[in-house]
């Protein structure tokens, strides 16, 4: 457990360093192209990229949980609104010897849940409305036990940073693409700038083409399947009752309701891989970002405990 915490902290630092360096590299490249080969422009762009990426890493460390929660449309609920959920969360926090996380509900009918935050003192647990409606107390305890293990092991720190960094890259890519279509291409009458615009478009397209599978790979490396099994096992140890989580996972596996807010940036945080398409098989685009072990295998392992 302590090893897991240390490993997650280390991975988070490496990931942020990698992201900052990568942003600096892209900044340099873009500056070089815009400036038409001028080193001073390239250096300026590199500095700007460095500052932006450092600030955004800091923001994703401090406010990543808020960002993830709001992109999932999660709503904080009071103990009066959801007494059972609050009681279960508080109970498992006691079992883990951690402070009670903030409690959120996501207005989705698919049964799912996630935890986020940078450490146990700043953590949140979110469950979907569908999960609340579907699970009895023992099953809910199983699910929350799993999430509480993610909190204790600092999986939430790494997961949240991954989610916000990936989200930012996606945003940045969209922004660049748009900028190129409406800004870069608009000044085509100037033959020199038009040529640059085309070069930038080509480069960004290339960067995106390389980046997307690379990002998917990084998420997979960072959020290895092993940690889901580990959280299942540790969660079962907190509740002292593996059949609870097993039964919850069986219900999750049997439900094929799609999730509207599912996206590749946050998919790895959820209890089970969320999907925007109905049915058992995820879309190939989502399958590329698949970070969860097969749910049947998770159920089997829980049943063997």
């Amino acid at each position: 457990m302590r090893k897991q915490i240390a490993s997650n902290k280390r991975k988070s630092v490496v990931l942020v360093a990698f992201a900052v360096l990568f942003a600096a590299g892209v900044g340099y490249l873009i500056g070089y192209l815009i400036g038409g080969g001028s080193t001073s422009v390239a250096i300026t762009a590199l500095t700007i990229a460095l500052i932006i990426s450092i600030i955004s890493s800091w923001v994703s460390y401090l406010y990543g949980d808020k960002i993830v929660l709001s992109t999932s449309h999660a709503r904080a609920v009071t103990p009066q609104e959801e007494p059972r959920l609050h009681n279960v969360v508080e109970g498992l926090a006691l079992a883990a010897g951690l402070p009670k996380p903030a409690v959120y509900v996501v207005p989705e009918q698919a049964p799912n849940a996630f935890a986020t935050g940078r450490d146990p003192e700043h953590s949140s647990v979110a469950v979907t409305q569908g999960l609340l409606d579907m699970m009895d107390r023992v099953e809910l305890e199983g699910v929350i036990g799993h999430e509480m293990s993610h909190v204790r092991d600092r999986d939430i720190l790494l997961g949240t940073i991954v989610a916000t960094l990936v989200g930012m890259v996606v945003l940045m890519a969209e922004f660049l693409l748009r900028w190129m279509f409406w800004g870069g291409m608009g000044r085509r009458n100037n033959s020199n700038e038009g040529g640059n615009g085309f070069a930038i478009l080509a480069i960004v397209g290339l960067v995106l083409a390389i980046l997307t599978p690379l990002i998917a790979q990084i998420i997979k490396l960072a959020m290895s399947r092993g940690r889901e099994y580990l959280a299942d096992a540790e969660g079962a140890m907190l509740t002292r009752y593996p059949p609870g989580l097993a039964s919850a996972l069986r219900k999750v596996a049997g439900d094929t309701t799609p999730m509207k807010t599912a996206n590749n940036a946050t998919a790895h945080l959820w209890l089970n891989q969320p999907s925007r398409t109905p049915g058992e098989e995820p879309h190939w685009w989502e399958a590329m970002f698949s970070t969860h072990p097969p749910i049947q295998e998770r159920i089997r392992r829980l049943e063997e405990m």
Partner: protein
Amino acid sequence: MIAVWIVVGVVVLALLYGVLAYNHLVRLRVNVDNAWSQIDVQLRRRYDLIPNLIESVKGYAAHEREVFEDVTQARSQAEAASGVADQATAENQVSRSLRQLLAVAENYPELKANQNFLALQEELTGTESKIAYARQFYNDEVAALNTRIQSFPSSVIARMGRFAPREFFEIDEPAKGPVRVQF
């Protein structure tokens, strides 16, 4: 001369170990105290629920006086209890009498449909499972402390620092399902 240095080295290492082991024991003891205070918070929450629960059942089943008296008596005994073992015995009595109270409530369909009663019942179930979870954590912490106190060589430091092993908090658990797995 070398012999002197070796002796000095050994003494310094032993002292260093002693300080570290002592601090570790202190930390474990603080953990146990904290874990106990978490149990205490939950036990108190249950005491606070009892009068409300009795009131709401009384509204429908005023004549079940014996059950109310049992619960009230068990509650005041539990509040007066001191020491881990005494507390456990008293709390078991509270749990048993509460179970009787709820069994009585089962006979009154109107009561079972009462929103206020349902909310209190959820609070009670929630609090009892929190007591169970807090107990689980406390017992784990006690096990860590006791192991440290009894195993060599930290046992030497424990004896010098007068660290006493703590008692486990043994109470009846609310049943979860047909199978309970012990780790």
